[in-house]
Structures are given as C-alpha cells and as structure tokens.
C-alpha cells in the first residue's frame, strides 16, 4: 500500500454511494409515514445490493483497489475511501445478509393495520439502514479517526436492535453491550490519538510507511487492538454477547451475529496487515490466537450446556469468532509471499463469510421455531422438525457449515487454516480447530436430535409460520454451503489491493 499521491479511480464514486445510499433511505424514512417505511425499504435494499455488486465487479475487473478521495483533498489532510479485495467481499456479504434479513423481517416488523403506529417496526428499518451504512464506511475507510466514527455509528445502531422488543431483560442486555462497547471505543480512540501524536497522520496508507518499532507504538497498538476485541466479543471479553444476541428479535440477532461483530474484527486486520504490517510480534500473534482458542473451547462447551436455543447459538458465535483470530499467527508471512500464509488469509475470510451466512440462517431458523412454539427450550423442541421441515433443513445446513462438513464454506475455511497451521509448524492451533469442530458437531446434533424426535406431548403451534420466511433462512444456509465450492487455493480476489 504505497500511497505517495492518492488519486481517485474512475468507479470510486460507487464507494461514496455505498455509504450514502442507506443514509438517504433513513432521511426519506424520517419524512414518510411510518406505514410506508417498508416501501422505502423495498427501494433501498435492491439498489444498495446493486451498488455492492457494482463495487465487487469494479474491483474484480480492475484487479486493483477502487479509491475515492473525499472533496479532492488527498491524505493526510483529506480522507480517502478505498475498496480492496477484502472490503469488496465484506460489502457483498453485508449486502446479501442485510437484504435477506430485510425480506425475513417483513413478517416480523409490520405496522398494525389499525390503531396507533408501533415504534418497533419503524425503528427497525432505520437501524437496518444505519448498520448498513456504518459497515460500508467501516470496510471502506482508510483513516483511523474516520474508522472510529464508523465504529461508533455501528454500535449506536446495533445497541437499540437488541432491545427493540422492550422487555426489561433486553434493555439490560443492551445497556451492558453499550457500556462495554464504549470502553472499547474509548480505548481505540486513545490508541489512535497516540498514533497521531507519534506520526502526525491517521491515514492507514501513510502510516504503513512511517510506523517505527518503539514502546509508544506498542502501547497505542495494544490499546486499539484490545478496544476492538471488546467490541468483537472475543473471549474473555464476551460478557455482553450472549444476552444481547439471544435477547434481540430474530432479524436483529441475525445481523448482530453475522455482521456487527465482524466489523471490529475487520478493523483489527486493517491495523495489523495494512497500517502496521510486519509489526505484529510472534508473541502478540500467539496471544491473539490463544484468546481465539479460548473462545473456541469455552464457547463450544458452553453452547453444549445451554438449555435455550438462542443462547446456544449465541455461544456458538463466541466460539466461531475465535477461529478468525488464527489469521494473526498464520497469515503474517502473507505479504512475503509464503504460500500457506495465503491459504490462511483466504481461510480466515472464508470463515468470516460462511459464518455470516450460516449464523444469520441459524438465528432466523431459531426465530421461526420460537415463533411457532412460543418458546425455544431445546428439551421441548421435539417434533417441530416435522412441522417446519424447511426451517429444520436450514438449521441443519448452516450447522453442517459450522461443524466444517464438506461441501461448505466452513469446511474450506478449516481445511485451509489447518494446512497453514501444519506448514507453519503451529500444530497446537490445529488441535484446537479440530476439537472445536467436534464440539460444534455435539451442539448441532444435540439440537437436530431434538428437532427430529417425537414430541413428548402433542405439539401446539401458536402461529402459522410463513413459507417465504422459511425460504429466506434456507437460502442463506445454502449460501454458506455454496461457499464450499470454491477451489481450495489462495483466492486472487481477496488479495487485490495488497
């Protein structure tokens, strides 16, 4: 990333559009009647999807990053937006999950036909657009302070999503999430301030050329990294995640688990692979991976012990996030052209994307089950598989991706990561990855066994479940499976721009 003079590329305007389009949706939503907000969504979602597709096409065809220089002021004075391979892929994943969630939420967040307007449906759509805009800003930003703002926007939009239903428990969960995330962001900001003090710039491209190995840099980097870990809910900083993700309504949980926690992870990767490449010491990389390993083991065992389906899925998210952190010890040789580092790089992103699809599908399936039964106690799920076969199928497919059964994105991710651990000589991470898959198999089959079993007492279905919403969950699960069809090689697309 040498940026002597940053100039905009021809399709750079798409990047601004990607961030501003959902914001435009919010502005329109504020002036229209609450009953029409769903119609606004039908316009915002497909066009936003088209923008993300266009960015991916532009990046793929150009074979290089798309750049936009805001206001024509080049860094360090101005701010640049850039879309490289990973940001384009993140944008695509975001667009797919958000559009699917929008379709899924149609049944859940409708205005009552009569009486006063309800607040939750109105707020939901606005939050959805905000999250979309914030995530796009986060993956496109290349200025540490701008990224801080994007990160805060993301948190502010994510927190109310938790307590949309307004029960006391969910408000508590939201508050806990909010306060913990605030500690994280203030630490990040402190680190960024120190970086500015040291190097006089916050632009990632410029920093990569200026960063020196000195104690102040280490402290600043540690502050930023750990602040972001708190927002990613990496073990042992995961206290807020289970109640928040399990308490949110199903579409909210899907977005939170699939996308929001990945945003801050993306930023950690940006710091260590783009802003300070080569400065992550072996010990620090091992520390991050060790936390990931702890997340996998503790999260998976706790998932096995849960009695509520949504809590089980939330703990599974904690575990699955752990795999992402193997990118640090395994892919650091990536820039130097070491083959298996490229494998680990691709494998980690595959884990991120496939988990996004699988987990969104799984939370949707859990939401549909809870809707049909009025509860989500795992022990009493018997027989629901017969009533909701499509939902069960969606759950099973996404579960298989989480376990890492071929063909699925989860399998590709684990295969590539494992090959990298072996070549890197860090077999201890391989053991954790394998045990994690085994434990995931345990909690997935625990639920599948209940879904398939005969009901203990005749099932009472509280409400009809719409077929189209079941199909939305299934299609996301199928996306996770289809990711398994990519070749088991380093992806060229994901290394565009580096």
């Amino acid at each position, binding site marked *: 990333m040498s940026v002597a003079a940053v100039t905009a590329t021809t399709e750079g305007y798409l990047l601004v559009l990607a961030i501003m389009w959902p914001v435009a949706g919010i502005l329109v939503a504020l002036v229209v009647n609450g009953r029409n907000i769903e119609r606004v969504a039908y316009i915002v979602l497909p066009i936003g999807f088209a923008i993300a597709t266009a960015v991916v096409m532009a990046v793929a065809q150009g074979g290089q990053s798309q750049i936009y220089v805001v206001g024509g002021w080049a860094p360090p004075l101005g701010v640049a937006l850039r879309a490289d391979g990973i940001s384009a892929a993140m944008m695509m994943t975001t667009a797919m999950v958000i559009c699917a969630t929008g379709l899924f939420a149609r049944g859940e967040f409708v205005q009552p036909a009569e009486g006063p307007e309800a607040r939750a449906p109105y707020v939901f759509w606005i939050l959805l657009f905000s999250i979309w805009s914030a995530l796009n800003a986060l993956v496109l930003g290349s200025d540490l302070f701008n990224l801080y703002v994007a990160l805060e926007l993301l948190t502010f939009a994510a927190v109310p999503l938790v307590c949309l239903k307004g029960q006391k428990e969910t408000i508590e969960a939201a508050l*806990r999430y909010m306060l*913990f995330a605030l*500690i*994280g962001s203030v*630490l990040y900001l402190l680190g960024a301030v120190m970086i500015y003090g040291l190097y006089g710039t916050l632009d990632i491209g410029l920093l990569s050329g200026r960063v020196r*190995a000195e*104690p102040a840099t*280490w402290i600043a*980097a*540690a*502050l930023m*990294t*750990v602040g972001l*870990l*708190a927002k990613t809910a990496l*073990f*042992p*900083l*995961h*206290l807020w995640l289970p109640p928040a993700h399990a308490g949110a309504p199903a579409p909210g949980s899907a977005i939170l688990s699939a996308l929001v926690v990945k945003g801050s992870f993306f930023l950690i990767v940006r710091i260590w692979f783009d802003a300070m490449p080569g*400065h992550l*010491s*072996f*010990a*620090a990389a*091992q*520390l*991050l991976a060790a936390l990931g390993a702890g997340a996998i*083991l*503790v999260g998976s*065992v*706790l998932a*096995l*012990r849960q009695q509520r389906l949504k809590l089980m899925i939330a703990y599974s998210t904690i575990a699955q996030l752990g795999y992402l952190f193997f990118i640090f010890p395994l892919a650091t040789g990536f820039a130097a052209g070491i083959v298996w580092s490229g494998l680990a790089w691709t494998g980690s992103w595959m884990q991120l994307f496939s988990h996004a699809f699988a987990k969104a599908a799984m939370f949707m399936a859990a939401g549909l089950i809870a809707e049909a039964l009025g509860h989500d106690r795992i022990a009493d799920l018997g027989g629901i598989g017969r009533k909701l076969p499509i939902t069960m199928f969606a759950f099973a497919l996404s579960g298989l991706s989480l*376990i*890492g*059964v*071929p*063909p699925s994105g989860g399998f590709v991710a684990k*295969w590539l990561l*494992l*090959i990298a651990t*072996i*070549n890197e000589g860090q077999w201890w991470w*391989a053991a954790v990855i*394998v*045990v994690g*898959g*085994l434990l995931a*198999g*345990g909690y997935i*089959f625990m639920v599948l*066994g209940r879904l*398939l*079993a005969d009901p203990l007492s005749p099932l009472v279905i509280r409400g009809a479940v719409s077929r189209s919403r079941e199909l939305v969950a299934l299609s996301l699960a199928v996306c996770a499976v289809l990711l*398994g*069809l990519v*070749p*088991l*090689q380093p992806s060229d697309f994901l290394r565009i721009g580096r």
Partner: protein
Amino acid sequence: MTMLADMPAVMLLAAAPAVPLLMIATAIVPRARERLIAYLPFAPVPAIVAAITVPHGTSVVLPQALLGLTLEIDKPGAILLGSAALLWMAGGIHARSSIREQVGRFAAWWLITLAGSLGVFLAADMIGFYFFYTLVSLAAYGLVVHDDTPDARRASSLYVALALLGEALLFMAFVLLAAAAPGGSVLISDAVAALSASPWREPALLLIILGFGLKIALVPLHVWMPLTYVAAPTPAAAVLSGAAVNAGVVGLIRFLPFDTAMPAWGEALAVIGLLSALYGVIVGVTQANPKAVLAYSSISQMGFIAAVLGMGLATGNTAVPLVVAFYAAHHTLAKGGLFLSLGLLDARSPRYVWLVLLPAAVLALGLAGLPLTGGQLAKMAAKGPLGDGAIGTLAHLSAAGSTLLMLFFLLRLNTTVPQNMAKPTINPPAAAWLVVAFAALVMPWILFPTIVGASWRHALTHKELWSASWPVIAGGVMAAVLWPRRAILRNIPQGDLLILAERCGPAARRVAVAFERTDDALRQWSVASMCIVLLVLLTALALAAS
C-alpha cells in the same frame, strides 16, 4: 489416471453416487417424499451396473461446481462397490415392506447414507472421499434413531458422538497428507505416495488408523457397534453392518502405504486386529440377542481384516488391497444376508422357519470359512498376506472362534424365534434375500481366480479342504461343550467397555461445570473490564517481545 473417451462408462461412474442424491432432491415435494421409499431398491442400480461393466482405471474429474471431485474405479473398488450395491438393493426391498412409520424421513436418510456408502469406493481425491465418508457416517444417525425408542436414542447419540470423533481424526489426517502432497494435490494416490517421505508420517498414520479403526470398530473403539446394530431397524442394520462399515475398510485400503514396508505400524495393526477378532468372539457368545451376536461377529471379522491389512503393511505387500476387498465383499453379503434373515424370521410361521434358517446357517458358517462356501475362498485368499508366522497361525485359529460364535448365533436365533411370533406380521419378500445369500456363496468362486491368480479347483484339494475344515470342527466341538453350559456365561451388557466409559460421565460433567463457572466468573462486569486492562498490558508486552 486416463480420462477415457468412453462416455457411458464415465456417466455410470458419476451416476452411482449421483442417482441416490438426485432422488433425495425429489423429497422437497411432500407427496413425493412419502412415496420415495417404494423406489429405494432402484437407487443402487447404476452402481451395480458400473461395478460390473465399467473398465477398471476409468476416471472422471467433475467440474468445480461439483467440488471438482475425481471419481475413479479400480478393482478393489469395483468389488466393494458391487457387493455393497447389491446389499443396498436387497435392503431397500426389505425396507419397502417393513418400514411403516415416518417412511419419508427414513427414505431420505437411507438415500444419503447410500450415496455416501457407494461414493467412498469411487472417490479418488481426499475432499471427495471425506465428503462421501461424512455422508455415510453422519446420515446413518437417522437410520439408527428411526424407531425413536430410548435405546435407539442412546445408541444414536453414542454413534454420532463417535462418528464425529472419527470425522475429526480423519480431517486432521487428510490435512497432514495434503500438506505433504506435492503441489497441493488432493489426489489420494499422490498424498499416499508422498507419505513415506513426509515429516508428519507418524501422526498421519496414527490418525488414519484411529479414524478408520473407529469405523470398523477395532477394540477398544468398538463400543458403538452392538448398540447401533441392535437399535436400528433390521434393513438398516443389514446395510450398516454389511455395506456402510466398508467405508472404513476402503479407507484403510486407500490410505495405508502398502508399497513401503512399515513393520512397526503393520504389526501393531495386526495385533490389534487379532485382539478384536478374539474379543468379538468372547463377548459375542455371552449375548442373548441374535442382533448383538451378529454385531460382535462384525467386530471379530473386521479385526481379522485389520490383521490382514496390518501384515500387508508390515511386509509392503501391494496385493493386500485386492485380497481385503475380496474378503470384505464376502463379509458384506454374508453379514447383510444374516441381518435380513432376522427380519424374515420375524414374519415366518414356525413351519417354514427352516426355509430361512438353513440358508442362514450356510451364510453363518461361511463367515467361519466352511468348506465349499464363499467363505472358504475368502479365508484362503487372506492366507497369503497373513503368512505362516505367529500372526498367520492365530488368524487361522480365529476361524474356530468364528464358528463357535456363528453356531451360538444360530442357536440363539432358534430360541428367540417363538417369542417374536406375537408381533404383527410384516412380510418382506424373501427373494431379494435369497439373491444376496446366493451371491455370498457364488461370487467368491467367480472372482477367486482373478484375486490370487489360481484356479478355484485349488480350493478343492484335500489339503485346502482339511485346512478349512478343522477350525470349523474345532469350533463345533467348543459350541457343543459350551452351549449346554451357557448359563455360566454372564450376559455382558451390549457395548461392554462402554459401561466402564460411562463411569467417566460424571468426570466429563465436572469439566463442563468448571467451564461454566469460568464463564460465569468472566461475565462479571468488573472481571471482564479488568480483563481489558490486563489484556492491554499483555498485548503491549507481547508486542515489545519481538
């Protein structure tokens, strides 16, 4: 690896696993799902045709949209494929008339297991092998749990736990193989060829033997087998015991490097195999349930196969894959046939019981190598790799144990038949079963010359006949002595060592509770926020330590 221009052959090869998978796709329509079970016998037809007609060495590389799988047929693969497909067909005919509840679901699980079971014999790359192996391992869960009784639930939970463990072990093994393969190739042949020079040879071999050892139920990894076969509906038990278990056999055939002599690994495998062979007999004779006796017989037979494979590995004998495939194919038909006969006995009136019992007796003793049965030839073929040493002699002696166990099976069968008479009768057609029984008897005679390169007449010499007879006679004498005294044999619970393992349950629970306590503590606000501060310091220190 020549891609022949022979389109029909290539299509057949791909159709063998694809047809059952395509049949499942129809299950999306609920009405089609309910009728699917009637078409189960047709699912393995392409595989049977492929096993007989496709020339060995034919291979096909599927497009990337189908995972880029490579399918290839060779002689051991064809033998295993043909015998397994035949059993699946007979099992399908049986299931069509004997499964009455939840037929749609049963058919779906059946077809997935079937696709995996046939696919493993054809997969030439590790990803494809792992894919099919996963299908056959995990989908069998649905067959085992079908009856939804407490026993079925316990058996299926245990089964799936160990199947997942096996999957995990093999995943790691394949990664180690792929990491050492030249140019990132995932072809099994490339990976195995590179294994002897691989820096990860020892762990890879260990994982391969453990992973596939779980599937073929080598002692002490055998605990799932008796529970599973007893709990599964009869046709499912037949195909699992006969066909699905061969996924483990073919795995060992494909992944052990028989072109390099590895005495230590080979002899270790052979010794474990013989222990299993013996163990299966000893525990098997104490079992009252004929299905459990058959399950222990499978443990014993698979132990014998492991002994042959082990000796092959120890001496670097490249003929072993073919011999083992031959032996395993006979076992498929004989064991599958015996399980199916149990289903038939349930339905027969006492007068005609002998019509089933007599062929069943021939099948059962065939497993012990009774002269003139297919089993005699199977044992004869195995003699070569086993050699004349201590292992060879012990393996030969194990035939006496098999005879004993099989006679006990027949006697147990006879004593349990009257109890089953009260059951509402379902009447599976006997013809399909007779075809399997006949194939078990005849198929080895047809294939024998192509396996060992000697005429089948060789089997009829006095020396060979006597060699095959005396273990049977010895087993008969043991049975005659033991049967009247069977009361002294304490009925060992099915799954034997499992009962010991279950004592570890509280310990495992304690570990889980400890994890829960850790999590509870870490989710305290003050602890978690202190963790942040601590982590900042740790990370800064770790960054400084460069």
